[in-house]
C-alpha cells in the first residue's frame, strides 16, 4: 500500500513556478480505493524511470477535498492532469496502459 503523498503549500508554489520543461502533475484519487493506489504506484514508476526527477507531483484526495474536484472539473477517478508543459492533458484510469500514459505525457520518445 503506497502512502498518499500530499505536498505542502510551499511545494505547490514552487511547483507552479516550474522551470521550462519541468513536469507539473496532479493526480486526483478517490481515497485508498484499489484503482487509486494502483494509479499512484504506476505514476511513481513512470516518473522515476522516464522523468528522472524533473517533475512536481500533487496528489489530491477528492474525498478529503471535494471542492477541488469541482474546481478542477474532475469526473472520473483516478484522473491525472498534466498541467505543464502545455498543452494540458487529462488521463483517466489507473495508468496501467503505460504507452498511453507516456503518449499523454509526451515523453514517448524517452521510454526504452
Amino acid at each position, binding site marked *: 500500500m503506497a502512502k498518499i503523498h500530499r505536498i505542502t503549500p510551499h511545494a505547490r508554489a514552487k511547483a507552479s513556478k516550474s522551470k521550462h520543461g519541468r513536469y507539473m502533475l496532479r493526480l*486526483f484519487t*478517490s481515497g485508498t*480505493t484499489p*484503482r487509486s493506489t*494502483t*494509479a499512484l504506484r*504506476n505514476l511513481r514508476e513512470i516518473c522515476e524511470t522516464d522523468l528522472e526527477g524533473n517533475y512536481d507531483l500533487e496528489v489530491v484526495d*477528492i*474525498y478529503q477535498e*471535494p*471542492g477541488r*474536484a*469541482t474546481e478542477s*472539473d*474532475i*469526473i*472520473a*477517478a*483516478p*484522473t*491525472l492532469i498534466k498541467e505543464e508543459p502545455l498543452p*494540458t*492533458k*487529462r*488521463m*483517466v*484510469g*489507473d*495508468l*496501467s*496502459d503505460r504507452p*498511453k*500514459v507516456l*503518449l*499523454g505525457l509526451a515523453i514517448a520518445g524517452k521510454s526504452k
Partner: protein
Amino acid sequence: MQRLSKKRTGLAVLAKTVERLEKAPTGIVGLDEITLGGLPRGRATLICGSAGCGKTMLGVEFLVNGIREYGEPGVFVAFEETKNELVVNSAALDFDLGKLVREGKLAIDHVHIDPNEIAETGEYDLEGLFIRLKYAIESVGAKRVVLDTIETLFSGFSNTALLRAEIRRLFQYLKSFGVTAIITGERGENALTRYGLEEYVADCVILLDHRVRDQITTRRIRIVKYRGSRHGTNEYPFIIDERGFSVLPVTSMALNHKVSSQVISTGVPDLDAMLGVGGYYRGSTVLMSGTAGMGKSSFASALARSTCEGGERVLYFAFEESEKQIVRNMRSIGIDLQPHLDSGRLRIVAQRPFLYGLEMHLVSMHKEINRFRPAVVVVDPISNLISAGTEREVSAMLTLLIDFLKTEGVTGFFTVLTENGGRLETSDTGVSSLIDTWMLVRDIEISGERNRGLYVLKSRGMNHSNQIREFLLSSKGIKLVEVYLGPSGMLTGSARVALEEQERDASVRQADDQEIKRAQLERRRKAMEAQIEALRAEFEADAVEVDRALSLESKREKRALDNQSAMAKSRRANGHLSQNSNRK
C-alpha cells in the same frame, strides 16, 4: 373501504389514490395538474426530448420554483452549458439564478467534458462526479437536483459498459440523498433516449416534443410513465415564454362548472332587449359569426366597454388588428376604449395567428387568463386560428378553451369570420354545440345595397327574439333599428329609409295636396275673374263705341233738324228740307 364505497367521480378519486406516493410540486402551470401533484419525491424523473425542446428550461424552472415557492434548495449540474451561459439564458425567462446562488440556495456545477483532452489509461469510475454532486448537494442542503444532460458522458468516455453501470449507480446514489431529481436525455431514434437512460430511471419518464408543421412550431409534453401514480396520458401542448413553462392541462376539464343566472349587459341596450333576459349569462359562451365588415368587433368592443364600466376586467385577444387600431376604429363608432386600457381594466393582446401554432395560442391564452383574471374574454376572431391548425384541431382546442372559461366562470365572446357565399350556419369550426348564445351578423342585399342584419340563431335559456334586425353603426354607437316589412320581405337600408320617409311624411304630403288643390282653385278663379274682366272690358269698349255712335247719330239728326229749321227759316218753308240734306 369507506372511500371505495363513495361515488367515484373522475379526478377526485385519482387525487385520493395518489396520496400514497409523495410528490414534489414543480410549480409549473399545468404540469402539476397532469402529474396529479408533481414529480415523485425522492426519486429521479427522466425528461427526454430532442434538441431545443425545453428540457433545460423545465429543469431550471423546477429548481427555481422549488426555491421560491417550496423552500427547497437545488443543485443544477450542467454538462452542456457553462454556469454563465445558464445564468444568462435563464435571465431571459425572468429567473435570476445568480442571485439564488449568492443567497446559497442554488448550486450550479458545470461539468465540462472534452473528449480530446481525455485519454483512458486503465480502469476508472465516475467517483469524481459523485463527489462533486455530493459536495454541491451538501453545500446548499439541496432537496432538488437537475442533471442536464448526463448523456454527454458518453461522448467523453469510450467504455459504455462502465458508464452504464456508473449511471445506474448514480441514480441509486441520488436516491440515497432523498433528493427529487430531474435527469434530462436527448431523444434517440428508436428509443426515448439515445443511450437508453429510460432503463435506469424507472419511476417517471416525461417526453417533450416540438414539431414543425407549416413553419409553425408546436410544443407538446407527454408523461410516458409514472410508476405508482395515475397521470394524464395525452399529449399536452405547452409553451415557454418570458415567465417560463406553461402546460395546458386537458384532464382538468369536466362538465361540472358552475352555472350562473346572472346577466351581463351586451353593451347595446337594443340587443339586451332582443335577448329577452337583458344580456348574456355570466360565464356563458357567445359566438358571433358573420361576413367581413359586418361589425363583429364592434359588438365585442361594446361588450368590453360596458363590462369595464361596470368595474370588471376584460381580456381582448385580437388576431386581426393591433391595440391602437382597435382603439381608433372603435372611437369612430363612439366606443372609447382608451380610458379602460389606461385604468388597466382592459387588456388587449394582439398577435398574428401564424406567430404560434394553435396549441401555443391556446396555452398562451390560458396563461394570460390565469394571470389577468378577467370577467370577460374576447377572441376576435377565432376563425383566424384555423390558419394555425386543421379544423379538427381547432375544434378540439376551442373545446378546451371554452371548457376552461366555463370552469373559471368567465364569459367568452368569440367572433367567427365566415366566407362570403358559404353557409353561415355551418362555418363555425364545429364549436356551435358548445356555444350558449350564437348570433349572426350578415349582409342583406336589397336593391343594390348592402346592409347589416343581426339575428339570434340560438340562445340557451333565453326567450330571445326571432327577428332579423337591421343595425346601424354610427358615431353614436351600435343601434338596432325598427323592423320594416315590405311586400318582398324585410326592408333595409334606403328602402327602409324610404318607407320610413313615406310614413313620416304622409300627413305632410296630404296637407301639401290640399294646398295645391287650393292653389289650383285659386288660379282657376283668378283665370275666371280675368276672363270676366276681359269680357267686361270688351263689353265696356263696345258700350263706349255704341254710345259714341248713338251720340253722333243724335247730333247729326239734331244738326239736320237744325239745318232744316235754319233753311226753313231762311226759306220760310218746310218743303225743301230733303234737297238741302242731300247737298250737305
